[in-house]
């Protein structure tokens, strides 16, 4: 099949970018979207032209590296899917597809479709962990955890940190990402000790990094490859209120 592409090209962080036209001819509907970009790049490389820079790694939907806005939707049209798992059978012969990077002040473009997501690391650095040193842990079965609690925590912990939530949000808010980690740890007994300190520190860090606030539209949930629910955001708010009231943080 043949597809027309409009791809964002930007030489560097400060440079102005624009959409450029490319054609993917002779691609197969079994290909993944990224394999189609590989084909386009291979032909650019053979001509000695600079390849289109885009991030990808595991190509099985778990590393969270791939990050493209396709036709105005982060990770493209399929629910619960990263770009690397989007296949061309989802498109029709002759379709025109627009490809853009994540756009947010906190995710500056490095080149073309590649952005800097270190702000997410900084949010975790602020407190997204349980402070246990290696060596002194009690037996794994010493604390019983109800199956439902552990499953709910796992639902939140499934976040792959891709940043699609930020990309989809009209406010470029990181609330879904943060709340997934806050929920995961606040649900489990192991996360209780630092529960209040954590929620305040992570929210302050996200605000400092220039992410927006949340307007409860739920675009983030709709594009999340792991279908993480915005009920996590509500849980984060409850944690925050508790931190204020109970702990006086």
């Amino acid at each position: 099949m043949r597809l027309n592409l409009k791809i964002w090209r930007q030489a560097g962080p400060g440079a102005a970018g624009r959409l450029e036209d490319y054609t993917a001819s002779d691609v197969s509907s079994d290909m993944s979207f990224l394999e189609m970009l590989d084909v386009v790049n291979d032909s650019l490389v053979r001509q000695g032209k600079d390849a289109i820079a885009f991030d990808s790694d595991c190509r099985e939907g778990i590393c969270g590296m791939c990050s493209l806005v396709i036709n105005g939707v982060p990770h493209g049209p399929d629910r619960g899917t990263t770009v690397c798992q989007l296949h061309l059978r989802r498109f029709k012969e002759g379709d025109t597809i627009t490809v853009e990077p994540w756009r947010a002040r906190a995710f500056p473009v490095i080149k073309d479709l590649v952005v800097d997501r270190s702000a997410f690391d900084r949010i975790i650095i602020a407190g997204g962990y349980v402070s246990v040193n290696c060596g002194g842990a009690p037996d794994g079965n010493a604390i019983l955890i109800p199956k439902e609690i552990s499953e709910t925590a796992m639902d939140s912990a499934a976040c792959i940190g891709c940043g699609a939530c930020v990309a989809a949000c009209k406010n470029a808010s990181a609330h879904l990402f943060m709340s997934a980690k806050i929920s995961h740890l606040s649900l489990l007994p192991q996360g209780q000790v630092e529960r209040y300190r954590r929620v305040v520190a992570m929210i302050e860090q996200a605000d400092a990094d220039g992410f927006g606030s949340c307007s409860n539209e739920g675009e983030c949930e709709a594009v999340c490859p792991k279908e993480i629910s915005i009920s996590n955001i509500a849980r984060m708010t409850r944690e925050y209120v508790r931190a204020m009231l109970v702990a006086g943080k």
Partner: protein
Amino acid sequence: MRLDAKEPSGPIASKWDRHQFEMKLVNPANKRKYTIIVVGTGLAGASAAASLGELGYNVLNFCIQDSPRRAHSIAAQGGINAAKNYQNDGDSVYRLFYDTVKGGDYRSRESNVHRLAQLSVNIIDQCVAQGVPFAREYGGLLDNRSFGGAQVSRTFYARGQTGQQLLLGAYQSLMRQVHARTVRLFARREMLDLVVINGKARGITTRNLVTGEIERHVGDAVILATGGYGTAYYLSTNAVNSNVTASWRAHKRGALFANPCFTQIHPTCIPVSGDHQSKLTLMSESLRNDGRVWVPKKQRDTRPPEQIPEAERDYYLERKYPSFGNLVPRDVASRNAKQACDDGRGVGDSGLSVYLDFKDAIERLGPDAIKEKYGNLFHMYQKITDENPYKVPMRIYPAMHYTMGGLWVDYNLMSTIAGLHVLGEANFSDHGANRLGASALMQGLADGYFVIPYTIGHYLAGESLPKVTTDHDAFKESADRVQKQVNQLLSIKGSRGIREIHRALGRIMWDDVGMARTEESLKRALAAIPKLREDFWHNVSVPGTPDNLNQSLEYAGRVADYLEFAELLALDALDRSESCGGHFREESQTPDGEALRDDANYSYVAAWEFKGVGKEPELHKEPLNFEEVHPTQRSYK
């Protein structure tokens, strides 16, 4: 060079305890005076960097991705083994040790494996304490599942995302140390050389992948945790950026490379669908707990699976291996799938796949139970193939997955270069010729959380390490060498695509150095690889400039290393004229087609010394002694 594995003496069960006591210690106040470079942020790298940071060392941690959380450990699905015996089904440290040595087909070092089995228990405790949401039973206890190559349930899991959850646990511990300023993080950096001063590893040279700057980093010891070399086969289940570059460049600086021919083909992958494919997707072999593997009895049977009656199906694993059935080790399952397809009984358009059928399990347990256990895997399968595995049997085929070989290390995980330690998949030590399922996560974390924190202290306390700076001649020479290669790659300006050459290499490797190897095929590969390398250096096109993000340049550098490394892999396979584990030489098989080991001649670790590109490397042998688990022909019948 004599290889000294530095195994502690005494009975196997007390070797590690004794060694822990005998090792030298670094005074707590002095730890921050030592700088340790950790390359890689997967399970091994992140856990090492975090625990060394916790001890107070000054750690510099590097990764090629934009965040440490993206390392390929994240993709491990099935689980992590530990000899907890929570199921009361007869498991023990000794049994895990025994299973691992046997599963590795008697090509691993007993003392290392026993330590691994011992530490497995602590890993689970540590991960639970970090908040890893392992699967639980209704009573709140940790749940287990069984896995290939074992008859006990000892695998801990977090849905089909165990690697992700363990990695995030390690990543979070690492981030905590970044917060505490004991660890400094260097993302989007690629290690392109090791700096050796007076015989000791003292630093690395990296390329900043964003600015293109060649950077020098100095330390008192270097830890490589840079993963395996599966992408030498182009198509593999590894991430597309996984590479051998860091290991290979350390090898070129003097670290011996051990058992490169020990590669693992994973039996339950989604079959190749066309030439365009960039990677293969693995599905956890836990699927084999409930799925039944079969092919039609008739050759070239093109009927759809539901029209093939039971009597005309060959459940070949259950037939040939009644006691292990569908749960035989990976190498056995893979080879049998290949045999069925070679025999013309493969299914799918290409004839290169076999069925993995959940019909019986769905009838027995109900679709909801199957969904709870394997929902994400079924979802992934359907995404990729456009087929619904709840309705039609899955199709699977083996794919390159894991590499047991790696840089040679002694019991302290130190390579043949003093101060250069190698952890996780990047080293060769614990899995012998074949790794059992759910053991890679265990090894990566054991190395990082519980081994290196002790052994690095032993090294640092026992060495005199005069202060050096990045102005040292060795750093300059290294940076020049890296810069020269960058310039060289950009100056070829040929007409062949980088991927095209990588794919050609992969084809050679899969066809001639793949699941079944012969002297003839290996010699064919050894003749073809140097030609391809020649072609690369004359005709490849690497566009762009060196001073910014240039993914073509990164990729070309990695392929260049593979074109050298692949030759060593084939040479090692040729040298090892026996079949063992994942290494199957057709010349060496039992009458019924099982791998036939040759313990009299090959009970050694083959450690290769680099002598120059295109020059014959020198083989050093570390003999393997089995005092506990006496080698027998592996049998899963």
